[in-house]
């Protein structure tokens, strides 16, 4: 039973990440409202970030900040074992990705505002209809 739960837990995580990605991707493609697409885009990006962060998870390890960090520097002060700390690399990558996500969000919203000012609507089909009328 314990094993089964472990397997379900292990797989469940990845499934949920992929479900979230699918939600975001679906919203980006299928939604008609431009701001809804941007929400979907952020959900997609965040789901990918979640996936990355989970690759760094390590059972029985603590956060990647070294203990006894203060005081004397250099080797010999305290022996550090890799198994005691969570893998820091995905965290670093994802800090970058979060910032990229918010940058994209800013530009996308600015563009959406420009589109709204021009066509007075955020619905894509209404905008296309207005373009065709001209």
């Amino acid at each position: 039973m314990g094993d089964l739960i472990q397997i379900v837990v292990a797989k469940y995580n990845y499934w949920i990440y992929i479900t979230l990605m699918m939600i975001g991707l679906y919203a980006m493609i299928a939604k008609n409202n431009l701001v809804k697409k941007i929400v979907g885009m952020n959900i997609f990006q965040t789901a990918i970030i979640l996936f990355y962060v989970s690759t760094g998870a390590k059972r029985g390890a603590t956060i990647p900040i070294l203990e006894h960090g203060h005081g004397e520097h250099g080797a010999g002060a305290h022996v550090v074992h890799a198994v005691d700390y969570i893998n820091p690399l995905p965290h670093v990558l994802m800090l970058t990705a979060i910032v990229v996500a918010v940058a994209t969000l800013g530009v996308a919203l600015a563009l959406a505002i420009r589109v709204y000012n021009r066509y007075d609507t955020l619905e894509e089909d209404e905008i296309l209809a207005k373009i065709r009328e001209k």
Partner: protein
Amino acid sequence: MSQQYPALLVIVPLLSALVISAAGWINKRLCFPIAVAALGVAAYSSIGLLLRVLDEGAIVYRLGGWDPPMGIAYYVDHLNGLVLAVVSVVAFLNLIASKKSIELELPDKTAPFYALYVLQVTGLLGIVATGDAFNLYVLLEITALSGYAMLAMGKDRAQLSTLNYLYMGTIGACFYLLGVGYLYIVTGSLNMVDIANILPSLYESKAVLGAFIICLVGVWVKMAFFPLHAWLPNAYTHGPSAASSLIAPLVTKVMIYVMIRLILTVFTPEFAFNILAISKPIVWLACIAIFMGAILALAERNLKKMLTYIIVAEVGYMVGGAWLGNRAGMTGAILHIVNDALMTLCAFLVVSNIAYKLKGYAFDDIKGLVRKMPFTMGALVIGALSIIGVPPTCGFFSKWYLISGAIQASQYAFMVALLFSSLVNVVLFFRVIEICYYEPFSDDGAHGHGPPSEPMAEAPLTMLVPLFIVAAGLVLVGIYTGDIVNKIIEFAIPQGIV
């Protein structure tokens, strides 16, 4: 100092982009000289770098002084040395040519536009030079964001089409990121060479296969490969001339470079061509891309939009050539990156000259244009000959390699697609040139007093000279194709591909 070329190549443009945006608040006239100087340094160091690579072989530059798998390293070999030189030279020429049109189209926002322009070039150069899979993603986003901002400054529906480009571009970049994540989880590394060393033991793994497909689809979205091309024509057509003549020649080409880099370095040709049996379907897809690009271009009655569909077809050439899986096809694809960057630049510079003097570039607007702008039209003819693939120009030679690659791989459909597309290009450009040469101006027809004596109203010299340099470059690259192939591309392709 030549040790530091790889760093200078991207740092000088980055720093000067920042200086430009700050200087714009003080004096706008400072911006253009700074941008020219920055891209000049970038072009100089990229050519210096290429020459060093030719002498010494691949160069590894450790950023931050850390050894590659730990830190980020630049890895410059023959392949990206060549692409770096092309990118920086194209960006430099286009910057000089675009000064007037930027001042005309965006009078009160020149400073941020130059800053974004230089940032875009920084991103492109970084993408080409980097040897780290994740670093590539970050640079991809710089390129993308600055590109969106520049393209959205155009008229008509520019904002809407750019927003669509943004959605598609983000999907592409996210797919690439996801693919890198899948690779990371099974290899634990982000350095391209390091990943390539670990992968051979994992070729059977489904995760690697998934990673490869996702990365490939992401890159395809970014390069507008056929079923995923819908964002490109509108975004490029409605952007300001300066932006589209930078982005159209470079971004798709750089993404094709990324695809070739993924095949050659990260996943190795062994995996891509032999273990996976997906070469054939992809070449078929490329054939469809070429056909559809050509047919959609035929349907257009707007010069700039027609050119964007030609880009879609050209992307098909390069993807197909790269996936033929033999030496000739790969050579053709790499050579075509160089040639197509120059050809597209030539065509788009012509369009920006026309836009500078006329209101639009629909076929109705350019009637009888040859009397008004004879030099610009002369350059268009050379560009058109090259896109069609007529011998002295460079377009012929890359097409030659692609076709001989298709015959070697017995992919006759690809050969037929290439010939068909050349034929369609003949029709397309003959139509444009016919309109420009023979059809009189519509209001002149009313008078009917013999041939109209339209005064010459050529674009300013700063726009014409770069255009002539590019047109001359098309012929020169064609003449020196042998040297480029034997001295550079020959070493860029690993020995494993026959």
